[in-house]
């Protein structure tokens, strides 16, 4: 392996937020032409470390050395000038600007006289997107019209545009499906060939082993160790991260499957929910697989009353219902944990306590008054039950790490004691430990008779947790596969299948 001198090295980095020591004395370095994976549970401090490396946060202590010289980054501009580019975990794009503008913003190719060369901007964006195998994205489209996955790619193109020596990617694959992950990994390998050093954060072990040259593990803001990839295996990494071994990522609980709770017949909404029919039974986990943009989220939104169905029937426990608002869905016993945690799932400025009680605030009230005591009690119980890592229940949820935020969203919806729980990408960006915990929670729920509809882009998760798999493509169901028959190949084929006319 190359033993080139590190291009960037960080030593003794520490950072505190109010009341929380996010990072304690961590050292880290990246060499040119390597992929250095950064691992750790949610809240371990990965993003914090990265933000200091890219000039967004100023460290409380520690030194940054670039190419042998000690530097201080006053802003992201300094880091950028030093050859460090970042794809952040929270996508930082500008909805009203076009794809091309987003890619080159702050870094436009100029013509003499300082004018922006717009032709060049568009052409180079096109080239970058092509490099990412993203031929179907219009460089003049406004970003607000793109899906999450498409935005992700714009974000990567943006980082690539800077011809960086070091590219930091904070969970770049969190919202990508398998085939896109493969494409991305190809890109990463190409960059490595070109001598770019890559910092790669992911909670997906398979990617780590497929890409990384070295791994560094953080735990609770502390430095656990840096290893060559050859020295470790999955179990070893997991125990470094969690501090204990984990038996199974997909603890499939055997629950008795009961009567049909939800029955959907010929459901339609717009172009993305077309003639959908399926049924869901008590104690069952129905996995929903599909490519990005296949319309899985739209299906969930229709069931949840956000985008009421234009036609079709929904039967809940034998009664025909028309669901026209989330509130009504909730009253009927349907809960939805959305895919976009920050925007849809949580009120980030509000305390954990208030978020937990939010979906069923009536429940925590006598008359119109909120019972603050009971609210606190329940929140405390939820925090304990899901082992949410936080200072106290008065902490704003925005300050928690991704996985812990996700647990709060799930806790919120479980307060409504739903009959049907729709989980949209329940473990996106969630670390192995928390992922296993969330899966365990799902197991407990089905044992209590809850019916779960789980949308996931992570095939192992779909296969590992589902009793049955529903595959969606282009807004239509293209496969319904029992657990026993659900192999990656079969599901994968159905995902890319078109509905075969009216033939079958």
């Amino acid at each position, binding site marked *: 392996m190359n033993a080139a001198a590190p291009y960037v090295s960080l030593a003794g980095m520490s950072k505190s937020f109010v009341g929380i020591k996010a990072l304690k004395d961590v050292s880290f370095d990246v060499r040119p032409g390597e992929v250095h994976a950064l691992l750790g549970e949610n809240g371990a401090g990965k993003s914090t470390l990265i933000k200091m490396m*890219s000039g*967004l946060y100023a460290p409380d202590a520690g030194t940054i050395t670039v190419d042998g010289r000690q530097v201080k980054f006053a*802003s*992201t*501009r300094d880091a*950028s000038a030093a050859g460090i580019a*970042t794809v*952040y975990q929270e996508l*930082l*794009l*500008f*909805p*009203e*600007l076009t794809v091309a*503008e987003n890619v080159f*913003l*702050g*870094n*436009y190719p100029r013509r003499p006289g300082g*004018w*922006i060369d*717009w032709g060049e901007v568009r052409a180079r964006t*096109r080239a970058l997107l*092509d490099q990412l*195998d993203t*031929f*179907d*994205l*219009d460089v*003049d489209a*406004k970003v607000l019209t793109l899906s999450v996955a498409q935005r992700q790619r714009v974000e990567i193109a943006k980082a690539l545009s800077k011809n960086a020596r070091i590219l930091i990617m904070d969970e770049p694959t969190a919202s990508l499906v398998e*085939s896109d992950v493969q494409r991305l990994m190809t890109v990463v390998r190409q960059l490595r060939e070109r001598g770019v050093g890559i910092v790669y954060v992911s909670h997906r072990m398979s990617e780590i082993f497929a890409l990384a040259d070295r791994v560094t593990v953080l735990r609770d803001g502390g430095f656990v160790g840096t290893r060559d990839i050859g020295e470790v295996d999955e179990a070893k990494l997991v125990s470094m991260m969690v501090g204990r071994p984990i038996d199974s990522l997909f603890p499939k609980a055997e629950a008795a499957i009961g009567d049909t709770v939800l029955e959907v017949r010929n459901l339609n909404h717009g172009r993305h929910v077309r003639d959908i029919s399926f049924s869901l039974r008590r104690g069952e986990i129905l996995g929903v697989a599909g490519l990005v943009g296949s319309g899985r989220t739209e299906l969930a939104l229709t069931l949840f009353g956000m985008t009421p169905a234009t036609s079709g029937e929904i039967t809940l426990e034998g009664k025909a219902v028309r669901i026209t608002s989330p509130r009504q869905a909730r009253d009927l016993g349907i809960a939805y944990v959305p895919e976009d945690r920050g925007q849809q799932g949580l009120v980030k400025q509000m305390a954990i306590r208030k978020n937990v009680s939010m979906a069923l605030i009536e429940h925590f009230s006598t008359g119109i008054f909120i019972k603050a005591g009971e609210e606190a009690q329940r929140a405390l119980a939820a925090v304990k039950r899901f082992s949410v890592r936080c200072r106290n229940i008065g902490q704003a949820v925005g300050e928690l790490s991704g996985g812990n935020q996700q647990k709060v969203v799930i806790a919120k919806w479980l307060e409504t004691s739903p009959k049907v729980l729709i989980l949209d990408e329940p473990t996106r960006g969630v670390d192995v430990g928390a992922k296993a915990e969330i899966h365990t929670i799902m197991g407990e729920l089905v044992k209590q008779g809850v019916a779960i509809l789980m949308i996931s882009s992570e095939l192992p998760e779909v296969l590992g947790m589902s009793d049955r798999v529903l595959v969606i493509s282009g807004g239509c*169901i*293209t*496969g*319904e596969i029992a657990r026993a028959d659900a192999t990656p190949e079969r599901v994968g*084929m*159905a995902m*890319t*299948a*078109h*509905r*075969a006319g009216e*033939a*079958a």
Partner: protein
Amino acid sequence: MMTTAVDLPPTRPVSGVQRPGFLRRLFSDYGQELVVLGAIVALFAVVTLVNPRFVSANNLTTIFSGNAYIAVAAIGMAMVIVTGHIDVSVGALIGVLATISGTLAVAGYPVWVAWLAPVLVGMAVNAIIGVLVAYARIPSIVVTLGALSILRGGLISVTGGTWITNLPPDFLIAQKDVFGLPVPLVTMVVLTVLAALWMRFSAFGRSLYAIGGNAEAALATGIPVERRTVAVFVIHGAFAGLATILFATQLQVIQSTVPPNLELTVITAAVIGGVSILGGSGTVIGSTLATILFATIGSALIFVNVSAYWLRAVIGLLILATVLADMLRRRSRI
């Protein structure tokens, strides 16, 4: 029902997608501007049928030129709003600047000094506002509400409301013509075009949309958000200064008071012109068109003999109609 037919993974399409047609892009990028323009054209058509004098050269001058100063002020306001801020003090500022300008002109300074002064002072005042917004992180509406009181109170206590008369004829540039067109009209058009191009194609202009769209992301992208925020307020101050020149040189006297409700008029022009009040979108073409729309409405209602008592109600209705038309247009697009 379920298909078993399997296609191979999608074959690689040819690089590049077709760009949507010119008209479609025009509609999606300038939808609100077109709505406003449509409203203007419709009004012109209807009123001209009633009274052809409506499109006489004189009346066109009155409509386009008489409110040019509002349009110029609205350009700066549009930029501020695009950046995600607002300024409710601009009316008071223009009152103050007009007094400064007129006082200098009467005191015998060269007219270019009297013209330059409001621009510079406007920039200076707004620099302070910008610093308070950008670095002290006080919401712009709070800062400018405060500034409104300070400027308004200050103007009265300094001038006591004495009017400025005896303005030197050279000073009255708004009454002159260039190329046979009134100066205010030319100024409005030139400034609008320049500002529109600048906002559309310059790096600085684009960064304003970025800041308004997502300030946090702008910071992470390396845009100096604070400096740009101060800069946009300073530019807005310069436009307020330019607006002041048109305002103060239109008549042979300058009223040393704050023009009533000017700030609301300017803000309304910007937002009806399509500048999103949440920041991040809109153009100065829209704000100028909206100013012209208001001027057209004001003139049209006199021409069609709407009872003066109901005038304001009709204006309100028309504004509301424009807003709703835009909302429906947006909705039909989604």
